[in-house]
């Protein structure tokens, strides 16, 4: 028990200090923000107002770039829809300010909702290209549509502020500050909510999230729309403050400015985009008046320098610096933890759940498994898969009964992993049908298959490298058992005690609880493999696909993995691809031999072990090689 208490102890000693620093910084920032109007000259007041407006834009974009991994160059579109919406509604339709502002925000949000439908299906380069293209076309439409939008001259708002009180720049500043604070606090809650963690999971490894049951599209879409709303809010404030909606609101320059702010400050940090907005706005208004002609060139140089020398931003840079100054804390070194690891190696279940000593299976099967579903767990009918001219799976026909444990063996390139990809939905079969627990899933997304009870591990570990061990587990839980929380935006993840408790239970089973606060990229390979299995078990699957669970493990780690496999609950259907034949023969009751995309043999381990063709495949032709092969197996046993 002491092993588990130590890690929180370390964390507890560390956390209050960091919070104290952060609180002090936050209090100082608030004090400065409130004091701006009566301490600084009015020139700086306007810079501060604009910095807050751009801060709102950058905060929204940061949700996309920093937390969801979607680098959008279309934010100007929603900013512009907000500013022009306000302008057109108040000037042309004579609407009162507040309803017009609400309608303009709704317009920007609707714009994001429409563009998001298309853009969010794409990733990386394609996403960038499509967002910039859509934003640019909107800019062009505005630029040319002179009679409605004022064209190149923009649209004068005839004032544009909500009421007389707002025409004092100090008052408008406080108004902007209040809106800014509301957006910042709102975004903070989104980020620390289960939804925020879900987004970070998508950012890190979208495929993994899909196989854990997330329809990632809807999550990304919601983030896109939220960012659009923030941009529209910034847009109306900008139009109200400047008294004009101009084509520059919609231009690519605006999108790039927002992006530069996020990058300069630090994407994926809460303070980063705000700091970036303040710095860039101040620079812009200082330097562009000082050197009118050279400002664009200076800004161009800033873009290049920031990209080359500050790719992670100022705030992350300071964070790294602060971490270096702090006394070194190494979670995997303290003695009790080593004991825990050693204990886990000897007997994971005993070390991990002290007290009752339940095996992993008992704990995992505590909740309802889908194992009782009628009919076979998996049916493959004529499944083929070709990549261009290369036929990887020729015609797979196979039925796996519920509760069966099936091993799949075959040489490298036999099609084993492709078969798993096809079953789990990562690859679509070229032909054939896949039926999962009586449901045809041939065309279903990986997330749908996951919800039917399918779970899998990957041959090359597919974890969320920049999330902690506990967060990895929580992503898995929020995709399945605690699905109801995954779109929960208003309640912090840490307030959901049941998720944390379940994560602790599962991590104890695999002996990783002591490492729960370690980012997964810093975890040893053996521990990553164990976490890989734990993530696959978290959804309490009915059908588990294990892709080479012992690949790359040391002998001791293999022994531990075998114990973990042995303790899997009885009702669970398992398909396992493995090169260590002794692991397969010990664990399964049926073996499929895959060769050049075809099942060449299907039978109990004893038959397969004695089969000449299999021996031929594995140990080379002739009986002479056979004893050597068996010797290898014996040695490994």
């Amino acid at each position, binding site marked *: 028990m002491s092993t588990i208490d130590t890690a929180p102890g370390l964390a507890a000693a560390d956390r209050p200090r960091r919070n104290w620093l952060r609180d002090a910084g936050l209090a100082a920032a608030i004090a400065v923000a409130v004091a701006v109007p009566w301490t600084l000259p009015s020139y700086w007041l306007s810079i501060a107002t604009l910095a807050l407006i751009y801060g709102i834009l950058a905060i929204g974009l940061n949700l996309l770039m920093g937390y969801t991994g979607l680098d959008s160059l279309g934010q100007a579109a929603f900013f512009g829809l907000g500013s022009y919406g306000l302008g057109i509604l108040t000037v042309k339709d004579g609407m009162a300010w507040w309803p017009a502002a609400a309608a303009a925000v709704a317009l920007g949000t609707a714009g994001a909702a429409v563009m998001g439908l298309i853009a969010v299906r794409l990733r990386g380069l394609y996403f960038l290209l499509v967002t910039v293209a859509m934003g640019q076309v909107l800019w062009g439409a505005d630029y040319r549509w002179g009679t409605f939008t004022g064209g190149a001259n923009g649209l004068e708002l005839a004032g544009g502020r909500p009421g007389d009180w707002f025409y004092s720049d100090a008052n408008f500043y406080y108004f902007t500050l209040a809106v800014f604070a509301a957006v910042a606090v709102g975004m903070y809650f989104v980020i620390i909510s289960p939804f925020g963690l879900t987004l970070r999971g998508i950012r890190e490894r979208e495929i993994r999230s899909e196989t854990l049951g997330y329809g990632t599209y809807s999550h990304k879409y919601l983030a896109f729309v939220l960012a659009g709303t923030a941009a529209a809010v910034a847009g109306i404030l900008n139009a109200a403050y400047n008294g004009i909606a101009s084509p520059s609101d919609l231009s690519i320059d605006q999108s790039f400015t927002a992006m530069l702010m996020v990058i300069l400050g630090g994407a994926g940090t809460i303070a980063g985009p705000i700091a970036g907005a303040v710095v860039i706005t101040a620079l812009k208004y200082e330097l562009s008046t000082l050197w009118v*002609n050279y400002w664009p*060139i200076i800004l161009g140089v800033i873009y290049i320098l920031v990209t080359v020398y500050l790719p992670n931003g100022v705030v992350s840079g300071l964070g790294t610096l602060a971490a270096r100054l702090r006394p070194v804390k190494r979670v995997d070194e303290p003695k009790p933890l080593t004991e825990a690891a050693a204990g886990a190696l000897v007997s994971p279940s005993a070390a991990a759940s002290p007290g009752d000593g339940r095996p992993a299976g008992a704990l995992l099967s505590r909740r309802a498994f889908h194992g009782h579903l009628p009919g076979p767990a998996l049916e493959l009918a004529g499944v083929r898969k070709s990549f261009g001219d290369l036929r990887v799976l020729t015609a797979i026909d196979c039925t796996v009964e519920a509760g069966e444990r099936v091993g799949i063996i075959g040489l490298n390139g036999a099609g084993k992993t492709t078969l798993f990809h096809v079953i789990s939905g990562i690859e679509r079969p070229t032909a054939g049908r896949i039926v999962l627990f009586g449901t045809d899933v041939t065309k279903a997304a990986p997330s749908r298959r996951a919800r039917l009870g399918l779970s899998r591990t990957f041959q090359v570990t597919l974890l969320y490298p920049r999330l902690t061990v506990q967060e990895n587990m929580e992503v898995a839980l929020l995709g399945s058992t605690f699905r109801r929380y995954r779109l929960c935006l208003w309640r912090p993840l840490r307030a959901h005690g049941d998720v944390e408790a379940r994560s602790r239970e599962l991590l104890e089973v695999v002996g990783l609880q002591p490492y729960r606060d370690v980012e997964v990229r810093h975890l040893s390979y053996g521990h990553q493999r164990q976490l890989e299995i734990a993530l696959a078990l978290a959804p309490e699957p009915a059908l588990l696909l294990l892709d080479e669970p012992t690949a790359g493990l040391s002998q001791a780690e293999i022994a531990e993995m075998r114990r973990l496999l042995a303790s899997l609950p009885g009702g669970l259907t398992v398909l396992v691809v493995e090169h260590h034949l002794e692991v397969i023969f010990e664990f399964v009751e049926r073996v499929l031999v895959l060769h050049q995309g075809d099942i060449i043999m299907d039978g109990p381990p004893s038959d397969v072990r004695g089969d000449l063709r299999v021996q031929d495949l594995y140990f080379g032709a002739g009986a002479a090689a056979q004893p050597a092969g068996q010797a290898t197996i014996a040695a490994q046993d």
Partner: protein
Amino acid sequence: MPHLLGDIINGIAFGALLFILASGFSLALGVIRVINVAHGAFYILTVYLGITIATAAGGFLGAIVVDSLTVAAMAIILQRILLNRFRLAPLPQVLSMYGVNLIIVQAVRLIWGGYPEVMATPPALSGTLQVFGTIVPAYRAFLIAVAAALAVALWLLIDRIRIGALVRASVDDEEIARSIGINIERLSMMLFGFTGLLVGLGGALGAPLIGGYQGVEFEILTLTLVVVVLGGIGSLAGAFVGSLFIGILWNIGTAYFAQYSYFVLFAPMILVLSLRPTGLLGRKLNIGE
């Protein structure tokens, strides 16, 4: 309807120019995965530079040569000192190239003053032709011929000799490419230089037709983006089809309802993207991408 026919032929000519401009952009995107957001800046630079060269000395041909070589050289240098640092990382590529865009556009403004200018049509191409009873300016016919020749040449280069496939394969699997002795830095540099050559050519050829004016860099970038997104990301054939389609639409749009010309672009783009996110002739996406 000779009037509409004339508009369509003019549209094809404009599409031909768009293709010359978009082909470089599309190649850079498809092969070394660079979104060249400085595309419009290259265009505006070549227009003013080309006009200066054409009037001072060298004439139209001199403008073409100087423009193409200038942008090719700039592209090679940019690839060497900037893009090479961020291979296959779209975000830093786009951000730093936008910085380059700002610098070039402002430099052009400082040097040439930023007044709207159009190159005089070269004398040899200033006549007109009769096509199906419609008068077509010879320069436009010339653009169509150049674009057609360029399309064939690129098709031969990329599809027949498979040099494009080789380059793309090298980009996809750097380690393998390195291990068989391919110098990727150099290959990417040459390729980006070549796309610069095409953009420079497009700018010189566009100078008599569109010319340079305030904001033209954004318009050219936008039209190119629409062409590439519509035709299919990284597909030259897509860029060809997209250019002609957008050229005709744009020409008719600006002729009949100038104010709404961008809506004419917007609608087909949204339609195509909702049906095929990677464009008409772009390759389909796998889940992993």
